[in-house]
């Protein structure tokens, strides 16, 4: 017969410890939730989900560009975004799009983009998944996007998209050394 009495005290102890630790977790600004679309289907991995949370503000900032200089959608040429002081992609303040209307561009189904893109000198890549859409923000180095759904940093190990069944990719815009790439999963 298993004795559960000792378990009770230990469980209560661990629960109390967990509660006290997590009471100190500071929530992100509530405004961030307003811009966060609810997910009806979650297919990304935990890592992807976490990355999506981190970069969501930056993603939507970039998606809000109705027209962006250097947009190479539909071609396989290189872009060389301007170097600026603020290049971190994860915060709205670092993106700074004063006065720009928020008009998300339409993504095109079945439309592929293969090419090489040179961006600024920092070394970060963020991948997010929102329902069937795949969003990337990349900074630093030169990246090669392939039609099989892989994104390789040139002279570096490839970074896979969260889903191997990604069929269409499109560069949505560049801003301050950040390239946003969006696509649909098939």
């Amino acid at each position: 017969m298993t004795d559960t009495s000792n378990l009770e005290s230990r469980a209560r102890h661990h629960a109390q410890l967990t509660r006290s630790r997590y009471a100190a977790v500071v929530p992100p600004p509530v405004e961030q939730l307003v811009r966060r679309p609810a997910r009806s289907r979650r297919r990304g991995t935990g890592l992807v989900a976490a990355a999506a949370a981190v970069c969501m503000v930056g993603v939507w900032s970039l998606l809000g560009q109705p027209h962006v200089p250097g947009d190479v959608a539909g071609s396989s040429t290189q872009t060389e975004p301007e170097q600026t002081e603020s290049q971190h992609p994860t915060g709205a303040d670092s993106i700074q799009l004063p006065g720009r209307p928020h008009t998300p561009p339409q993504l095109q189904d079945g439309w592929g983009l293969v090419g090489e893109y040179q961006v600024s000198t920092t070394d970060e890549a963020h991948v997010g998944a929102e329902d069937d859409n795949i969003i990337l923000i990349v900074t630093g180095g030169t990246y090669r996007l392939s039609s099989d759904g892989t994104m390789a940093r040139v002279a570096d190990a490839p970074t896979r998209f969260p889903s191997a069944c990604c069929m269409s990719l499109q560069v949505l815009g560049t801003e301050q050394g950040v390239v946003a790439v969006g696509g649909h999963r098939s």
Partner: protein
Amino acid sequence: MRSGLEVLGVSRRAVPEGFEEFYDQAYGRLVGLARVLTGDHQVAEDLVQDVCAAALGRWDSIDQSRGVDPCCGHQPLGFDVATPVLRAASVQALAASTPRSYLLPEPTEEFWAEVRALPRRQAQVLVLHYLEDLSTHQIASILECAESTVRVHLTRGRRALAGRRELTHD
């Protein structure tokens, strides 16, 4: 100078009354709940933000339909919020690759890992019972099952957990 969020057209007017207070109070607890169920802090935060965003979208119905006072200290969680956290967490538990040691000391981390190793329903019941200190009646409401079912899961979960700990620690 406008903030980045204001530039994006997000204003505080979009946040309904009462939500922010609930959000501030419940966020850490929900993250803790999702954290022990998934074993991954970042996944937990992401889940809770998803759930809070969904709750924000239908805040009026949550506040009125079930009579949940989201700001009441005696109410452990808004049930409408806790349920999707639990459901999503059980899915995410499969996707979370490597559990991270985030904030919790090792013995506590080990304890929750043992809970997560139990059958999914037993783990959920134990977490709600111990971490949220809920009654079997409240757990049954959240998990949408009979109270007797909760008691069975609780008994079996405790027994299994105690058995495992005897094997590994004695």
